């Protein structure tokens, strides 16, 4: 146990956890907002993928990575809004809508990449920028904590700041109240004059914005290009993280951190020569085990009380 903590306190390992966690956390918070509004965003994977491509294309075209990020956020938001239009405007089921979006996004990003670069694999030929790491002025000098907390990617800080922001938004703002009301009982919310369609539209849009940021982190943070299907299932892991987080922002944060640690452990173990297939199972087994343990404990508690 001590070994584990001292390993995590190693700035390099800690930074790995943060990097692995960042896209999961951004996406999972997006899923959280949609879920609390009663329309679980199954299309997160597709939104991330689109955000990743849009960010690269716009950043390459404008030579400004911040405009690229901005475009990724807008693009993600528009896709979220599009989902809301389909679900509430045309009455499609939210699961089908998400699956369809994922399918369409995979095809469309490949096509888009091809149209922009003449290449279906990756955008290496485009000169797209990366978003910067941020050194926190005073903190950087503090021993132990400084190297641990300073100098990470701007979207990592954004993701972590998004946790209290989402928590406060849900608990303390009228919009958050409306989200919780609509997600829990749309009829009752309607009786109070709150339009389910409008709230879900805004919630999915916001969810899409966070998904766009998660995608931009992959293509403008991790690496400086877009590659076909580069999200590699992170949108689905984000769904798992959100469910593990029990519908709260802080819980989602904890779940994303645990998944980040699991993946980091898997990566470190691989360099020690354990079979790669078994290491690749770790990030998938951990959420299943945690989910089940939580559920079992909740059940046991409920039984004890009644």
């Amino acid at each position: 146990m001590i070994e584990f903590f001292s390993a995590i306190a190693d700035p390099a390992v800690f930074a790995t956890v943060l990097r692995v966690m960042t896209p999961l956390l951004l996406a999972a918070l997006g899923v959280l907002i949609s879920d609390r509004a009663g329309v679980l965003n199954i299309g997160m994977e597709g939104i991330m993928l689109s955000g990743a491509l849009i960010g690269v294309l716009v950043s390459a075209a404008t030579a400004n990575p911040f405009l690229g990020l901005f475009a990724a956020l807008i693009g993600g938001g528009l896709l979220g809004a599009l989902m809301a239009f389909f679900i509430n405007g045309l009455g499609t089921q939210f699961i089908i809508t998400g699956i369809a979006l994922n399918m369409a996004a995979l095809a469309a990003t490949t096509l888009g990449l091809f149209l922009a670069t003449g290449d279906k694999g990756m955008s290496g030929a485009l000169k797209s920028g990366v978003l910067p790491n941020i050194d926190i002025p005073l903190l950087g000098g503090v021993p132990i904590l400084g190297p641990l907390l300073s100098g990470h990617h701007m979207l990592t800080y954004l993701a972590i700041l998004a946790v209290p922001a989402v928590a406060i938004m849900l608990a303390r703002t009228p919009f958050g109240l409306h989200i919780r009301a609509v997600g829990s009982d749309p009829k009752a919310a309607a009786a109070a004059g709150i339009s389910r369609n409008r709230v879900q539209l805004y919630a999915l849009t916001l969810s899409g914005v966070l998904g766009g940021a998660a995608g931009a982190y992959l293509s403008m943070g991790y690496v400086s290009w877009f590659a076909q299907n580069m999200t590699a299932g992170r949108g689905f892991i984000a769904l798992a993280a959100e469910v593990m987080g029990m519908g709260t922002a802080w819980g989602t944060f904890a779940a994303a951190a645990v998944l980040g640690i699991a993946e980091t452990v898997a990566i470190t173990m691989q360099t020690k020569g354990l079979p790669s297939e078994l290491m690749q199972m770790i990030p998938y087994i951990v959420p299943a085990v945690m989910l089940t343990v939580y559920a079992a404990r909740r059940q046991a508690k409920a039984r004890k009380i009644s």
Partner: protein
Amino acid sequence: MTRAILAGLTEFALTALVIGLVILAVLVPLALSQPDPLEVLRLFVLGPFGTIRHMGNILEAATPTMMTGLAATIIFRAGMFNLGVEGSFFLGGLAAAATAVLLPLTGLIATPAAILIGALVGSLACIVPGYLRVRFGASEMVNSLVLNFAFLFAGVYFLNYVLRDPNAGALMSYKLPGDFTLDRLLQGTRLHTGVIIAFVACLLGGIWLYGTRSGLNVRIVGWSPGFASHLGLASSKLLMQAQIAGGLIAGMAGAIEVLGLYSRFSWTGLPGHGWTGITVAILARENPFLVIPAALFLAYLQVGGDMLARNLDVPSEIVGLVTAAIMLAVTAAAIFRHPAFLRLIRDIKGKEAGEEQGA
């Protein structure tokens, strides 16, 4: 009765019309960019019916998704959103191949034994998340989603360390012995007896769901757990039975796919037929009889898109876009609940109701 059928046909016609419009909306701009626009439409729409072989391709592509669609239907009907079908399909194929490679079976029992073992092992991917839900209340959707990948990597590990043929140039199992195969049905295609199994399975599934007592009980448990407990139905047992049945069917589908089409096992990623099966189930409105046309329809789109990509300079990704658009269009309830449409259906049905009362 006749009018009820007429009303059903009206709904079907509208569905077809909507799909037609969607295809046009996606394809027309594409077609116009081609030298011969009409050829694009002709190829996509009629191409799959052009030759026996292409029709065989449709059936071939629909065989696994009919069965995974059926499996997903049964699972969803029991009120669980268990996505283990994909994992079951993968494990079923792997276990069938392992049976063929590792067990000294020959003759007529060889293939059935491999399919049986494939079904049994494959069902695990549905049973585990189902059990964790029934026993502990853990979300079966998320558990099945992540466990699918865990099963995949465990399977690849098994393939690499146990089944791998070192003389093959890729990560592949040893060749499956000749007794482990399904008969081909049609020259020039790979259509095999599995397609008959798939059809029969869907029909039996439909008869079970709508025509038997246990099918009715599963539908009750799935739709309203409260009513089921009021009736004293053994909900947990019925739920698990549905997960087991779905898992067995999906595992069997994987086994049939491997034995019917391949001479070696070489999946190193999830093959995707389980995800398609989930789409099929939803398109079929969770009705086993409708699973057949829904799977055939998706296969038809697939074949049409492949033909476009093969014969014209059309990127193959267009199929993904068309399929996504059609999935949305077909499930867009707003179209089917539009007042004008409802009035039409009511008029057709209403007269019948009137007639019955008059009689």
